[in-house]
């Protein structure tokens, strides 16, 4: 196995474990992140990001050729920017 593959595998393992930790984190470990101006900004940014995606989900999706998206028949040019 080449070095970059070893490193890639290590990176993947680490990211997976940390992401799993965040998913399973007790509420007590998450709530402090909501406190204060930074917490409010972070929450608003997360809410906005998801809200925008949900709104745009009714037209063509991101990153894929429009004709290959499962939601065919919609004009991707209509997607708001």
């Amino acid at each position: 196995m080449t070095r970059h593959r070893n490193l890639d595998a290590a990176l993947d393992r680490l990211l997976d474990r940390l992401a799993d930790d965040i998913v399973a984190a007790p509420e007590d470990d998450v709530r402090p992140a909501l406190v204060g101006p930074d917490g409010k900004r972070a929450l608003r940014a997360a809410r906005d990001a998801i809200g925008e995606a949900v709104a745009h989900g009714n037209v063509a999706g991101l990153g894929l050729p429009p004709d290959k998206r499962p939601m065919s028949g919609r004009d991707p040019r209509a997607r708001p920017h």
Partner: protein
Amino acid sequence: MRTIEVDQPEMGGEPDRDVADALRTLADTDLLRLQAIARLRARVLPGVDWADLLQEAVLRCLDGSRAWPVGVPLVAFLAMTMRSVADDHRRRRRREALAGLWAGGAANAALTEADPGPDPERTMQAVQALAAIDRLFASDEIALLIVAGLAEGLSPDEIRTRNGFSQTLYDTARKRMRRALMRHHPTGGEP
């Protein structure tokens, strides 16, 4: 909303109304979990913003590209989808980089069928990505040892045994790590 270039995912079913409904009612803490995961994964994707990654994952779930398995919490489902989007993006970047060097369609074959051999640029990217994660815990020596163990694929018990950590010391450090990941706000605190 910016575009993330990704590979074509597997085709799924109809747009998922359940996902849309569930997204609208996510708890604040779950929104922050998703943001934290997106930020973590985006750290190792040069040029990709956490919001782009999260939004692409949401879209895949909404349009049926990814089916929401029964019994899996939405946050876990979106976390898995973000991993998939990130993997697709990295694969595409590599293929494009190879395609720039190789004529014709040999690049795809090289990536999928053969070991392309040592790749200094890719090695450097992985080193930088691991260093970026280390910086998150730079002031916490115990956390860094745990990070090293996690990267090696060690179990919690193996990490504790190797480093001589008590269960309490280990659990406390993991709690600090979780809080550090959650605290990592988009404005300020960027290491």
